[in-house]
């Protein structure tokens, strides 16, 4: 590992410019024994931050971990629909990485990855290079603009935000909603599955409807779903819309968006043309950019196939993929991303120690959706590795709430506090 150590020192030579925290430098200086290996993690979202923490924890500090993340802060997608409803602010969902770095001696580089050389085991960033023994790629999702080129630009997204990666677009969409006159029409779409957070778009419908009901009762929301039906918690959402938001939600299945006129906020589907006062288009999705750069996806399928015991890519050795970029079959949720990260961290620790990874991983997964500012409902399942099929399958006993409740709203809020603290401290 001498070379790794030298590389790291080379990197720290320009360290402050790269955004390396003092805490991580001193943590490195503190390390007495040479590390048993170095893992570079690309992406500091739910999956990336979690894998970094648990690699350090479970290796008792023996594995050197460097995270490369483009943003300075973590902004939670879960609960960000509540910003649209008005019961949360984006500043309630924004966190720093300092505690995570300091508590676990994780090294941190704020930069953009531009290339990955899996033969030389090297990551190139805009302002430096890092070598790795194993690479973990957790880049989230990327949007596909082939059919909607008018929305690819920052200008297009300023007019018509996706707000599907929490941050300024979420704030922008909320402002547009606030500025909309009573009687206005909010139009949003649901992209073809698979996409990030299966119940998320339907939760958004509830949050927007809840705001309209309270503040703009003559307004309505038109939902253009590219899918043939509501694809998560269908019975529950249908009932909520009919009982809590009658006359507000106009849901249209089989309505993929084929084109958008940015200036007039008009959407075209195969059957329809709809004009909006506020328009929210969530484009179809694929594995994040780094996954594409690193050739972790096949030509005809835009998600990453992995070995579910280690999350190592089926295409590239020593490169692991986590979170929303992983091929469908598992819901693209925050809790799922952390579960994958923990199984992966566990496997890498075992492998670097010369031991076999756990051959029967099992984990619990839950997604809560808020249907008002207070009331929420869940979908929850335990997943277990199936040795014959070599995939994670849901165990018996899983399912959804009988009905949304305020009690589950409290538990969902508590889920958020606990998962944020688990991931970021």
């Amino acid at each position, binding site marked *: 590992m001498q070379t790794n150590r030298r590389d790291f020192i080379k990197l720290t030579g320009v360290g402050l410019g790269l955004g390396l925290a003092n805490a991580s430098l001193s943590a490195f200086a503190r390390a007495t024994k040479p590390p048993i290996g170095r893992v570079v993690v690309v992406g500091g979202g739910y999956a990336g931050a979690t894998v970094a923490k*648990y690699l350090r924890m*479970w290796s008792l500090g023996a594995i050197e971990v460097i995270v490369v993340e*483009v*943003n*300075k*802060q973590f*902004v939670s997608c879960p609960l960000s629909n509540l910003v649209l409803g008005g019961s949360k602010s984006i*500043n*309630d*969902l*924004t*966190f*720093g990485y300092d*505690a995570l770095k300091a508590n676990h001696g994780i090294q941190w580089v704020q930069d953009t990855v531009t290339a990955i050389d899996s033969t030389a085991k090297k990551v190139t960033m805009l302002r430096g290079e890092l070598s790795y023994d194993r690479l973990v790629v957790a880049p989230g999702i990327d949007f596909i603009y082939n059919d909607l080129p008018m929305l690819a630009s920052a200008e297009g997204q300023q007019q018509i935000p996706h707000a599907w*990666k*929490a*941050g*300024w*677009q979420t*704030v922008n969409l909320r402002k547009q909603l606030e500025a909309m006159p009573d009687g206005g029409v909010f139009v949003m779409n649901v992209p073809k599955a698979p996409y990030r957070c299966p119940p998320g778009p339907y939760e958004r419908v509830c949050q927007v409807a809840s705001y309209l009901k309270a503040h703009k009762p003559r307004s309505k929301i038109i939902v253009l779903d590219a899918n043939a039906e509501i694809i998560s918690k269908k019975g529950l959402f249908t009932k909520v819309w009919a009982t809590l938001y009658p006359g507000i939600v106009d849901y249209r299945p089989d309505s993929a968006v084929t084109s958008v006129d940015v200036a007039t906020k008009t959407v075209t589907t195969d059957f329809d043309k709809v004009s909006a006062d506020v328009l929210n288009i969530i484009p179809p999705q694929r594995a994040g950019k780094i996954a594409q750069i690193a050739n972790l996806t096949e030509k005809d399928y835009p998600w990453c196939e992995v070995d579910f015991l280690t999350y190592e890519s089926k295409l590239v050795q020593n490169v692991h993929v986590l979170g929303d970029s992983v091929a469908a079959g598992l819901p693209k949720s925050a*809790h799922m991303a*952390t579960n994958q990260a*923990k199984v992966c961290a*566990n496997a890498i*620790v075992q492998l670097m120690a010369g*031991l076999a990874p*756990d051959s*029967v*991983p*099992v*984990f*619990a*997964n*839950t997604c809560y959706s808020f249907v008002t500012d207070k009331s929420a409902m*869940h979908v*929850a*399942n*335990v997943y*277990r590795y199936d040795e014959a099929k070599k995939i994670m399958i*849901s*165990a*018996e*006993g*899983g*399912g959804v*709430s009988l009905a949304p409740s305020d*009690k*589950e709203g*409290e*538990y969902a*809020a*508590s*889920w958020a*506090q*606990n*998962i*944020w*603290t*688990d991931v970021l*401290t």
Partner: protein
Amino acid sequence: MMGLATLLITSVASATEVFVLSASPSHMRALAASCAACHGTLGNAVVPNGGGNGVDKAKLLAGIDKTDFLTKMLAFKSGEREATVMHRHARGLNTQEIEGLATYFSAQTPRQPSALPSQVLNKNHAN
């Protein structure tokens, strides 16, 4: 209580290889870590007052009495104890896994973690 514990031990003793695997520390720590989203890292939840998901601070999963844990999980599994979500998780796990989790969480040290403070979103944040 005794009857329950004895029953579990018997079923574990008669189990095969699978148990050896599920009882290995690396298997159990990853399964237990999936509970952290609602119950905190190593069973130390951060939200006080009935937070930490129905578990009050005095009763964190960290350091929980083993028999107490088993009784509760089996009551969720059978439906004897009403729950908003725990019946889903308890039913998806087998008895050996629940036994392993009881050992795991009872061995953790209870701490008093506080929730992570949020921040003002930075102007330069992408998206």
